[in-house]
Structure formats: C-alpha cells, structure tokens
C-alpha cells in the first residue's frame, strides 16, 4: 500500500474506532493493529516467492479450507442434532475431532498453490471462506441465545396413566432450590425428584385422555421445548 494511502486509511480507521468505541485507547489499538498488519503483509508480499512463505501459505490454506468445510458441514449438523431436533444433548468430542482431522488429511495432500492459480477456483475458495465466516457468526449467535434454555431430550415412558412416574431427561432444568413446574397439557404434574438434568414427576388425575404436550416452566418463567405425551384411558387398557 502506498505510504500516503496507509496514513489516510489509518486516520480514517482511528476516527471510525473513536466513533465506534468512544474511547481513544481502543481506537488507537485498532489503528496500531492495522499498521502492524499492513507491515506484515508488505513483508510477506516482498518475500512472496521464497519457499518458506510458499510452504507456509500452503499449510495455512489447507488448514483454512479444512476449517471452512468443517464449519459448513459439521457445525450445522451439530446444531440441528443438539439444539433444534434435540436428539442428543452433546455429540462426543471425539467425533468432531476425527472429522476435522480427516478433513486436514484430505486437504493437506492438495497443492493449493497450483489450484489458486486458476482464478475461478480462487474465487470459489474465497467465497467459501467468507460464507463459512457468516455461517459461524449465525451459529454462534444462535448457540449463545439458546445455550442456557431448558431442553427436554427424552421422556420415559412416552405415554402413561394416572399416578405413573415419568422420567424427563434434558439439560438446564435449574437446580433443585429453584424448582419449576412440569405440565402435561394444562395440568401440573407432581414433582418427585428434580435436578439439572433429570426430573421425575407423577401424573395427576387426567382431565382428558389422548395426546398432549409435556413441558417445563422454569423458576424464571422460561418454557422448555414441548414433547408429545399420550395420556391413556385406564379403562381401555388390556390386561
């Protein structure tokens, strides 16, 4: 970058930082980081044809693409399984690591220098990296938003009669001294046992039979996801 352009951009960045953070120290910090990056880039550009820089660029590219593919494939699946469909509370950490390492194996075999020479591929890769950045941003904001909400993953049994104890497994049910309420349809169940991840509750005398929804209202009035539950008519039960 031209020296005067760098100075002009630095000044603009400083003003922008000042406007954004309303603090001189932080604005100065951004400007200094920018200057540091520009210097670093200039040094890299100067020695761009050296084998060390080329080798390093290849490694960084392989790592970046592996992470990009990981973000675009694994994270949405993980989010879907643990937060939306509520199939499992957590996927074992070995899965994510194995998947990531498999991607690294695959992408470290590729000669990225040759691929990036083709302009179309270069643009596709850059777009993928940018897309993964957006995807990660969305994933992060959603994860943070629903991370601490009460979630029911499994109930056992899924149907019952009066006085039957239902076991509810999930996360973030809040501790026992902040016990909430459990509803089956419009009726409240009798809590027998309560902790952060497991609740045992007894079915009340049902006002009606059939399919209803079971859910938890926490002490802070936050409602969990609703799971289907069937209240059976004892008169229709076979011996």
């Amino acid at each position, binding site marked *: 970058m031209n020296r005067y352009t760098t100075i002009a951009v630095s000044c603009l960045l400083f003003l922008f930082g000042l406007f954004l953070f309303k603090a001189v120290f932080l604005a100065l910090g951004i400007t200094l980081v920018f200057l540091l990056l520009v210097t670093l880039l200039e040094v890299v550009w100067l020695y761009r044809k050296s084998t060390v820089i080329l080798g390093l660029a290849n*490694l960084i590219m392989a*790592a970046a693409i592996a992470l990009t593919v990981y973000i675009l494939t694994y994270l949405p699946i993980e989010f879907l399984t643990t937060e939306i469909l509520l199939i499992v509370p957590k996927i074992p950490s070995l899965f994510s690591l194995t998947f990531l390492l498999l991607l690294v194996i695959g992408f470290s*075999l590729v000669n990225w220098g040759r691929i990036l020479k083709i302009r179309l591929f270069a643009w596709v890769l850059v777009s993928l990296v940018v897309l993964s950045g957006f995807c990660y941003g969305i994933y992060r904001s959603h994860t943070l938003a629903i991370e601490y909400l009460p979630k029911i993953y499994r109930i056992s049994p899924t149907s019952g009669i009066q006085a039957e104890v239902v076991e509810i497994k999930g996360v973030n049910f809040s501790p026992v001294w902040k016990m909430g309420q459990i509803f089956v349809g419009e009726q409240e169940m009798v809590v027998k046992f309560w902790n952060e991840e497991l609740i045992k509750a007894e079915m009340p005398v049902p006002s009606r039979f059939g399919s209803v929804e079971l859910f938890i209202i926490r002490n802070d009035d936050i409602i969990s996801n609703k799971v289907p539950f069937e209240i059976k008519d004892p008169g229709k039960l076979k011996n």
Partner: protein
Amino acid sequence: MRKIFSFYRRFLETTFVLWLFLSTVGKFGFSFMVDLRLFSRVFFDIFLIYFVWEAINNRATIYSAIKGLFLKVKNEFNLRTETTQKNILSSLPKVLTGKGGRFLVLILAVVVSSFSFLLSFIKILKRFIFHRVILLLFFIFGVFANIFILSFTSDLIILLLIGSLILNIYRYKLKGEFSAAVGFISLTACPFLLIFKKELIAEKVAIWVYVFLAVGIIQILVKYIKEEKKSVPK
C-alpha cells in the same frame, strides 16, 4: 514410503497450524465444538509418531553419530587417564612405582580424569545454556507461557525473564528502539484483550509492555549519555 512420510509431515504441519489457530481463538471465547485438550493430546501423539518415524528413517546417521561420539569420549577419557597416570608416576619416588603402586595410581588417574571430564561437561553445558539462540528461545517461550499458560503472576518468574531479556539485549546487541517497538506492538493487543474480557492476560501483557518500554527507554538514555560524553570536547 518416502512419499507417505512427506504427506504425513505435511499433515502434521497443517494440524499444528489448525491447533494453533483454534487455541488462540479459543482464548477469546470462540468455540468450534472441538475439545482443545483432546486435540492437543492427539497432536502430541501424531508428533510422537513423526518423531519415531524420522528417527527410524535416519537410524544409520543417528547410530553412527552416537557411535562416533562414544568413541571420541572413550578415546579422550583413555588419553586423559594415561596422561594423568604418567604425570603422577613421574612425580612419585621410584619405590612407589611398583606393580601395586601403578595399580593405585591408575585408580587415582581414573578418578582425576572422571572429575576433569565432569568439569568439561559442565563447561559445555554452561556454554549450551548461555547460547544466544537458547537464551532467545527461553525468553520467548517464557513470556508466552507466563502470559497464556500460567494462571498466576509470579514476581520471581518475571524477574528471571527480565534477566534473560537483558542478556538477550546484550548478546544480540539490540537497540533501545527495538525494545520500545516490541512494547508498542504488545500494547496494541491490550484493548482487544479487554474487549474480550481477558483481564488476566491483558494485565500480564501490560506488565510486559511496561518492561519493554522501560528497558527500551533506559537503553536510549544510556546511548544518549554516551553520545553526550563523546561529543563534549576534552
């Protein structure tokens, strides 16, 4: 096999880059659902395999190097023992240079040369520890460990690292401007660390910023005083 080894090395290097990135962003609270502790352990295992593989590939060179070193040490030790034995024998009266006397002198020579060998080993070790590259690496890794790994602030460690910084400046003839520049560069990290609520790391970085700036200014002052003295006509 050689091709597979080269692929494996590239895989290891890429894994290292990724591990470094994930660990760094992890410090700022960005999680990618990867267990970093497990990742570190796996990376260490991969590195261990690479290390053993590399050793097996170069076993002939390693074996010859160890053998050469052993022979060199052995010959040196024998030579020293013989010389010491001769020196002792020449200073003894003839009555004591019989068969028994010679044997006793040999034992004494072995003890003396072992001691002198130990002394030369300590000398080599001292030269190795105070080697400028080792000193620099010790300082860099020490500062990184102090900032990012240790969860407490120890005055003793900081003093030790400041000592090694001064030694590095002396050995590399670093200018005061350099120390001040490192201080300023480190200063840029502070606001971001504070934004990401990493107060402890920010505090430690701030300590190092202060150290670098102070050392830099002292160096500049010393240089200025020296130049003043030179410019004053006698």
